[in-house]
């Protein structure tokens, strides 16, 4: 069934098709439509589980954590400040290896107050142990949520599905909503009959659930637990690739963790995240028509970082361009750090140009992306870690302003 729906509604449909037994979410702009839509499904009797009203984001995550410890499939959704309030709970959920799936609508933290898109909120949670997937279109949001349940339940780790605030959350486009029967075939009912890898406890034995992995660990025991968590994270890429392959066989749509687009003979490869990827594809097509050898890499998965895949596609390129919607102030873009690290593991030099653009929902337009690529082609070596793309004109008052590289 093809419907024109917003990104938020796509997330709600993804959750509905996965049939979680407990859903709690606290509304926050730009995520509010997700709990609204799910409560509608619940009222119509489409959602068989429980929809619980909660008083805050922390409570929302607390409820789903408790429910997940009882061995049921759960869903929650949040954004920005709400995610920050969940921060402690995120560690608890990942530490207890609970397959929670959460939709996070990307929005920056205040101050200054902003309601649009910026990836900093989820990137700031990168060390919590949650898997993170970034989506490009509304169709991908729906599909990724279904995939995320399968991956999360197979590797027993929580997963965060990130969608761009406003640029996807409020954007309506045609989405193919798959049949429930087909989804059921791909995603069988959650059966928590497994021993949590590395843990000494069994999920099914936990009754009452409060005990689940939350015993006090000695320092050595804790370190051993982190070792197991790290092992789990390092291995989960295989599961992600396999889940995607099977999804493709059933639904005909595929979202690899690191997607290559026209990269085969490309000298310059652009790395992009989130909704800007679509715009980037459009620019790559038009530059290819003009004879430039450019390609695109879409980073769908950020945690665990798919370093081998990144190295396979980016090592040895003449130039790598990263266009990202986040900034670690005083340092550089976060994807820039991670990718540069991945490329320098064996001390081969690949020039990486880090463009910071679209912070706080500034538009990353096709013109800007094209300017960034053409700038990179002209340069010999990257001079600075941050190149400001699409920054409004600023008054030049000191040396920093004079030296900073800005493309308007």
């Amino acid at each position: 069934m093809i419907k024109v729906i917003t990104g938020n509604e796509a997330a709600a449909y993804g959750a509905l098709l996965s049939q979680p037994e407990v859903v709690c979410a606290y509304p926050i702009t730009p995520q509010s439509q997700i709990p609204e839509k799910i409560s509608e499904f619940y009222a119509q009797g489409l959602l068989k589980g429980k929809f619980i009203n909660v008083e805050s984001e922390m409570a929302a995550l607390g409820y789903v954590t408790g429910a997940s410890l009882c061995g049921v499939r759960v869903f929650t959704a949040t954004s920005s400040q709400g995610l920050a309030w969940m921060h402690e709970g995120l560690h608890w959920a990942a530490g207890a290896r609970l397959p929670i799936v959460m939709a996070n609508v990307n929005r920056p933290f205040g101050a200054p107050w902003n309601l649009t898109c910026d990836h900093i909120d989820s990137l700031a949670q990168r060390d919590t142990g949650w898997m993170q997937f970034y989506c490009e279109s509304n169709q991908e949001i729906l599909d990724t949520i279904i995939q995320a349940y399968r991956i999360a339940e197979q590797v027993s780790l929580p997963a965060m599905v990130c969608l761009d605030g406003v640029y996807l959350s409020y954007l309506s486009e045609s989405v193919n909503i798959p049949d429930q029967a087909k989804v059921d075939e791909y995603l069988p009912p959650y059966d928590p009959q497994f021993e949590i890898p590395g843990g000494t406890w069994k999920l099914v034995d936990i009754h009452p659930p409060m005990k689940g992995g939350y015993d006090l660990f000695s320092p050595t025991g804790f370190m051993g637990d982190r070792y197991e968590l790290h092992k789990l994270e390092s291995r989960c890429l295989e599961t992600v690739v396999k889940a995607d392959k099977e999804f493709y066989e059933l639904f005909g749509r595929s979202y690899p963790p690191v997607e290559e687009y026209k990269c085969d003979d490309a000298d310059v490869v652009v790395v992009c995240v989130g909704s800007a990827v679509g715009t980037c594809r459009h620019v790559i097509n038009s530059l290819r028509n003009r004879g430039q050898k450019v390609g695109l890499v879409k980073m769908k998965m950020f945690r665990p970082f798919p370093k081998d895949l990144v190295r396979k596609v980016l090592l040895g390129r003449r130039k790598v361009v990263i266009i990202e919607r986040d900034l670690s102030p005083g340092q550089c873009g976060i994807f820039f750090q991670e990718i540069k690290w991945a490329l320098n593991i064996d001390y081969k030099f690949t020039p990486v140009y880090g463009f910071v653009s679209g912070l706080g929902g500034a538009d990353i337009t096709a013109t800007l992306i094209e300017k960034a690529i053409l700038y990179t082609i002209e340069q010999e070596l990257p001079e600075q870690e941050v190149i400001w793309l699409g920054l409004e004109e600023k008054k030049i008052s000191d040396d920093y302003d004079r030296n900073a590289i800005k493309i308007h």
Partner: protein
Amino acid sequence: MGSGGQGVVVAAKLLADAAAKGGYISQSFASYGALRRGGQVESFVRISGSQILVHSKMYGADYLVIMDESFVKKSKPALGVKDGGVLLINSSELPEAFSSLGDFKIVTINASSIARSRGVLLPNGVPVINTTILGAVVGVVSIVNFDHLAEAIREGKIPVPEKNIEAAREAYQEVVGEAKVAAAKGIEGGNLEKAAERYPVYNRDKMPRCNRCMVCYIFCPSLAISYETKPFWLNINYKLCERCGICIEECPRKAISWGVSN
């Protein structure tokens, strides 16, 4: 583009829906700040025969629908339409009145009057024009079928869909048969022009009524109201004022009222 509360976002969604029903791939998108009723809202629709990759806002559109003519009457904003593009304006005036806007093909439709005559009204009597003007849009953008629009309106969770569809049909027919349009325009109108020109006033006559509760100051969505203490006086900054009338509505002592400019 239009004012917040006119249904700009819903209109874009319905148009995208209607296009999808005709087998096109469509996308709709809105950009709005924290403003409530009265502020400027922009929404965008892309209709294509193939997959739409771009997810940014729109620059250089083919068509622009202006639901609130005061935006182009007060000033000449950058319209984001390509040269030779089409402007569809909700106005009681003839297209020539807007010829100073630039090199565009201009179509005007008195959607407010059509919506009023068809009874598509809010409880307070203000006509709801978004579905009406969509009829005209479908008339101008010929690739979308009117029946698909009617279907989209029916499915769109809109109160009294049939009245909306009738109003849309009238607008559609007016735009499709353009000769009729010119004749119909001279008669109607007047009300809308006044509505666009009016603005909230706080003046000396009303000073005794004001109890300095500052409700207007708190409720103003565009921070247009400021105050002085000695002596007490309210200032309304008409550059910021969106003419939404929230201050008039909220004032418990009726110390602010509509004024009409001469």
